[in-house]
């Protein structure tokens, strides 16, 4: 029997406001000593009055608009009641039946095969305190409690772990372009829970829906959902009932039962009496709409038309805002060069060796030790014929480790390209003398043997020989022989 997988995602995003959602405590708690960003509002002491942070509302409206949601004219906050010590008040201020944004969409996949995932809602709430579990007791740090948290819920339109990953990458990209969140999964400013079930293809009936939590990276989401769809398929085939439950992902590669959902939580939602409702005027919403920055899709299109890049290169470059900014800095630094060729060259470096160096050093492009002007100078050295591609790769690696200037490195290590025939002749003479087999192969009608000989010349010159010149000189010598 063929199955299809049905996935809906719930994403929680911490907003990058300066202060918390309902009070003036600093929202920047990373690295802060415990319980130092806490006030009577955070603690829910009697008599306090929370007040809505206007910037958090604006960020949420921006996000809802970027996700093509309709914005409710009148929105409000509600209390979600539950007993768990991550809440000081005994309730979380959230939004229940009047979220800021509703009914949006997000498109994923390549331009030629776009897939639309419907967005159910975008709402605003507050983050909760952090618990540290010790042996026999727990510790509470209230700093995180009250940090603005935006929740984005998708419809169950996602059909595979790959699509789930694409959705998250796209969503994170949009949030970073909007500048509303750092949207960093490892640091917890971007968190994802997934609902996943399977059903026989063609059937609209849903089996037990499983909620998967505790996935701390895009890779973890992908692995957890792949594991879960297979677990459910096996359970279905062996005639087991797939229970509706919450499961947690463990890094060793499995999901485990956290709690069964037989007893649905009753959160006893009711309107927050301390917060008057929000009426968002059409004027306000239009103002926010006009203030939206260029979003990844628009930038991708612009990269294709302005720089002549391929749709694929444009997509990869623009998904990461910092990468796209870096790329445009490079282009702006050297306006004298012909655009499509130079753009392609910069793109190739960024997507190839440059990304490779970032990945092996495990650093983000924001913290790259190689600034755009240095990469530009490296590219110029190649364009001017001063160094070969092979040498340039080594130089880039050294720029990453030492932060040095490419020209200084080339000078210091004597890496300038040998484009001087006389200098190369010597090397070629030796190479021919040491490789009689290749020479006779060539002379017996195997022209590809010259590639091996060029390789030998490159090896002896440590990559500094101009390969075209070497090939020319070699073939001349061989014809004469």
């Amino acid at each position: 029997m063929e199955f299809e997988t049905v996935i809906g995602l719930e994403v929680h995003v911490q907003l990058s406001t300066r202060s918390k959602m309902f009070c003036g405590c600093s929202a920047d708690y990373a690295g802060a000593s415990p319980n130092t960003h806490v006030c009577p509002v955070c603690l829910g002491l009697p008599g306090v009055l929370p007040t809505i942070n206007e910037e958090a509302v604006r960020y949420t409206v921006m996000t809802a608009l970027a996700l093509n949601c309709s914005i409710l004219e009148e929105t409000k906050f509600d209390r979600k009641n539950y007993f768990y010590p991550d809440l000081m008040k005994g309730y979380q201020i959230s939004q229940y039946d009047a979220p800021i944004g509703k009914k949006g969409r997000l498109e994923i996949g390549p331009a030629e095969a776009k897939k639309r995932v419907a967005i159910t809602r975008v709402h605003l709430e507050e983050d909760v305190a952090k618990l540290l579990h010790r042996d026999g007791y727990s510790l509470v740090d209230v700093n995180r409690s009250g940090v603005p948290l935006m929740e984005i819920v998708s419809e169950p339109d996602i059909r595979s772990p790959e699509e789930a990953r694409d959705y998250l990458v796209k969503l994170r990209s949009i949030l970073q372009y909007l500048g509303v969140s750092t949207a960093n999964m490892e640091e917890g400013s971007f968190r994802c829970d997934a609902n996943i079930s399977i059903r026989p293809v063609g059937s609209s009936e849903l089996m037990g829906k499983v909620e998967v939590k505790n996935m701390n990276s895009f890779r973890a989401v992908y692995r957890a959902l792949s594991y879960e769809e297979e677990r459910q398929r096996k359970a279905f085939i062996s005639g087991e009932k797939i229970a509706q439950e919450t499961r947690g992902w463990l890094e060793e590669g499995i999901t485990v039962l956290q709690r069964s959902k037989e007893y649905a939580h009753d959160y006893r939602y009711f309107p927050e009496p301390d917060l008057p409702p929000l009426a968002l005027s059409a004027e306000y919403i239009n103002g926010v709409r006009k203030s939206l920055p260029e979003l990844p899709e628009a930038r991708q299109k612009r990269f294709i038309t302005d720089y002549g890049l391929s749709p694929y290169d444009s997509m990869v470059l623009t998904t990461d805002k910092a990468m796209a900014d870096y790329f445009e800095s490079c282009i702006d630094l050297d306006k004298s060069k012909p655009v499509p060729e130079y753009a392609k060259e910069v793109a190739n470096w960024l997507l190839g060796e440059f990304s490779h160096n970032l990945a092996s050093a495990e650093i983000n492009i924001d913290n790259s030790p190689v600034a755009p002007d240095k990469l530009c100078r490296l590219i110029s050295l190649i364009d001017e014929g001063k160094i070969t591609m092979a040498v340039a790769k080594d130089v880039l690696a050294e720029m990453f480790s030492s932060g040095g200037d490419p020209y200084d490195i080339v000078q210091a290590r004597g890496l300038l390209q040998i484009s001087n025939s006389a200098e190369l002749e010597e090397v070629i003479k030796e190479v021919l003398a040491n490789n009689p087999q290749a020479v006779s192969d060539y002379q017996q009608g195997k022209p590809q043997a010259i590639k091996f000989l060029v390789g030998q010349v490159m090896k002896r010159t440590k990559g500094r020989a101009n390969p075209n010149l070497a090939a020319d000189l070699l073939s001349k010598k061989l014809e004469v022989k």
Partner: protein
Amino acid sequence: MALSKEEVSRIAELARLKLDDGEVEKFTTQLSYILEQFQILQEVDTTDIPPTAQATPIKNVLRKDEVKPSLSVEEVLANAPDREGDFLRINTVLG
């Protein structure tokens, strides 16, 4: 409408309140009285009145995104039943 002592004990448990027998007795009387008052309110005809959580027509009370000073750790932990360093210490909870 009178509440039973069992109901009051259950409500206290849900609200994480520890009541002794005397208090259960006292609150059973008081809560029953409150319920009776609401019983009277229930008699008002509200058919054409939309439900509301707000007693005033005020809307859009917002504040600027500005950081204000927080409490000192000592003030934050002043009401905590137990602490360890600068953390609140509580009984084990299961995630």
